[in-house]
């Protein structure tokens, strides 16, 4: 069975999404991969030195965030890997799922909506459907009620 991938980058839904992923990996006895994707558009708008610093800092924050998630999984005796990637968020997640031949993707649905959010409550389900169709991977959306 391919690994379960949990796409996370902190925020309001981060913790419950990670906990749900840990529980599922434990239940299925599957490998769990925490994935954090940062959009490169921010670094692209800046000069070379600052753009490079933004990318390095995104990598650093991603590693720190996923390190926290891994520590949580370790407490539950679940083995994990952590991957930080920089790229267009939706496409990069799809590419990664194909690369590792994932069995499931877990993402979180936020409590509040934002017009500018890539994954506001309406869009997260749309994205989940798109991933299912494009990759054949099962997608679990963790709702605020869980």
């Amino acid at each position, binding site marked *: 069975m391919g690994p379960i991938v949990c*796409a996370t980058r902190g925020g309001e839904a981060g913790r419950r999404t990670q906990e749900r992923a840990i529980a599922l990996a434990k239940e299925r006895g599957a490998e769990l991969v925490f994935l954090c994707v940062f959009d490169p558009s921010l670094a692209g708008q800046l000069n070379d030195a600052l753009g490079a610093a933004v990318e390095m800092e995104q990598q650093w924050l991603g590693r720190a965030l996923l390190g926290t998630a891994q520590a949580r999984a370790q407490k539950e005796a679940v083995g994990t890997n952590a991957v930080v990637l920089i790229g267009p968020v939706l496409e990069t997640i799809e590419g990664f799922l194909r690369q590792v031949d994932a069995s499931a993707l877990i993402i979180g649905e936020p409590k509040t909506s934002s017009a500018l959010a890539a994954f506001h409550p309406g869009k997260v389900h749309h994205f989940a459907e798109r991933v299912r169709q494009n990759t054949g991977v099962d997608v679990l959306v963790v709702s605020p009620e869980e």
Partner: protein
Amino acid sequence: MNRFLTAESVVVVLVLVTTLVAIIARRRRLPYTVTLVVIGLLIAIPTSLELEATPDLILAIFVPPLVFEAAFHLDLRQLRENLTPILLLAVPGVLLTTLLVGGMTALGAGMAFGTAVVFGALIAATDPVAVVSLFRALGVPRQLALTVEGESLFNDGTAIVVFRIAVAAALTGVFEPLTGLTDFLRIALGGIGVGLVLGWITAQLVARLEDRLTVTSLTTILAFGSYVAAEYFHVSGVLAVVVAGLLCGNVGMAGASPSTKIMIFNLWEYLAFLANSLVFLLIGLSVDLTLLWDNLGAMVVAVVAVVGSRAIVVYGFSWLARLWGKTSRIPSSWRHVLFWGGLRGAISLALVLSLPVAMPARRELQAMTFGVVLFTLLAQGTTIQLLLERLGLTERSPQWVARETRLGRLFATQAGLRRLEQMHRDGMLPDEMWAGLREGYRQDQQQVVQEIKQLFHEHAELEGEMLFQARREALKAERGALWDALRRNILSDPVYERLSTDIDHRLEALDLIYSATHERPSVGEEG
């Protein structure tokens, strides 16, 4: 004592008074600028101060530090994003304010229209120092803070140009609208041109020089030099300083070393503080209580005119800004903040102090300006926080405050424990007492740690905040360690510069990521 020593003594005494007031205001938690004015008034009871300096000299001394510091710190990239609303408020907004305030005070206070327009111009410049520091403390949206700061910077320039034209018209009794308009354009564009040339040259020099003392001197020459050069060509000195400061701060400082940046920022922060303090103290010293009492009616009219015209300008131009497109739109909650946050301060006071003695109703104008500045500081400055909270513009949610409160308790408990440990080590605390006290403190500490853990569990978004805060603290500690190593000669200058520049870039990057993820949440925010 010769004239020079007398003048020097006066300056020393003035700086001493501002410093003492700063100490008292901080300890007693009093509004600093208001305290300065009150102290000035009290000192002036026996005899009020009649400034001997020429109007031009007053502006040349006080305006460059006040304006240059603000321009130097403003991010040009972010400024461009909000340029339309800023320019609308700062250029036509100031012209309309001048006319509205002029008209209302002429009617309400029975003042000659020409003189009332001078008042309209000098009071048109907003001074958001107090508001902006509050914005930072409360975590108000960055773009709103930038609009307020940007408007203030550019309306200083516009207001001073209009003020000069209005004073000339009031003194000569002659005003040709067409000539006035062409004069306005010539003075404003000329000032911008001088600022562009001198700012660009200095930015190129600053970017190439490494010696921090030379670079700091260059910024001083630029701030005062661009003002003097522009005035020499009879164009706007203040706009020259604004443009020069923006260019030097954004282009010139981009590659400057951290130690140079620290030195320059500290110097300009101090000079702006000094100029601001002296202006407030001088207005207190120049105005006597009898004058205020005699002009109470005119002061009330002035306050009503200023607040009323601010409402018309802000709401009117915000409506107009919508026509420029989506990016120029000012959200309705921001309009209320722009309206009520339009405080008046140092520039208006410096302008009224600079009025020539021959100016009709000069003392009355001083009293009116004093009244407006005092009202905006006391009434608007003290209630703006309430307005921000009512409008939901503060990012400090109840859980954020709860986390901060618990962190505060944790720091305090740890400090208490460290002190007890030291007392025990020094033999002041017997073993048994130390054991008992330590246990009490440890229990408190565990209790707070547990509460923080619970809070993070209930409000997961706090974890993200904590990650940014922790990283910021760690980077600052890294920079502090490098500075320490430099002082102990463990690191050489070039290595220190390289490493600390890297950390500065990381800190700047962290702020950019924070702003981007908080204003434009994407996958990670939700997941």
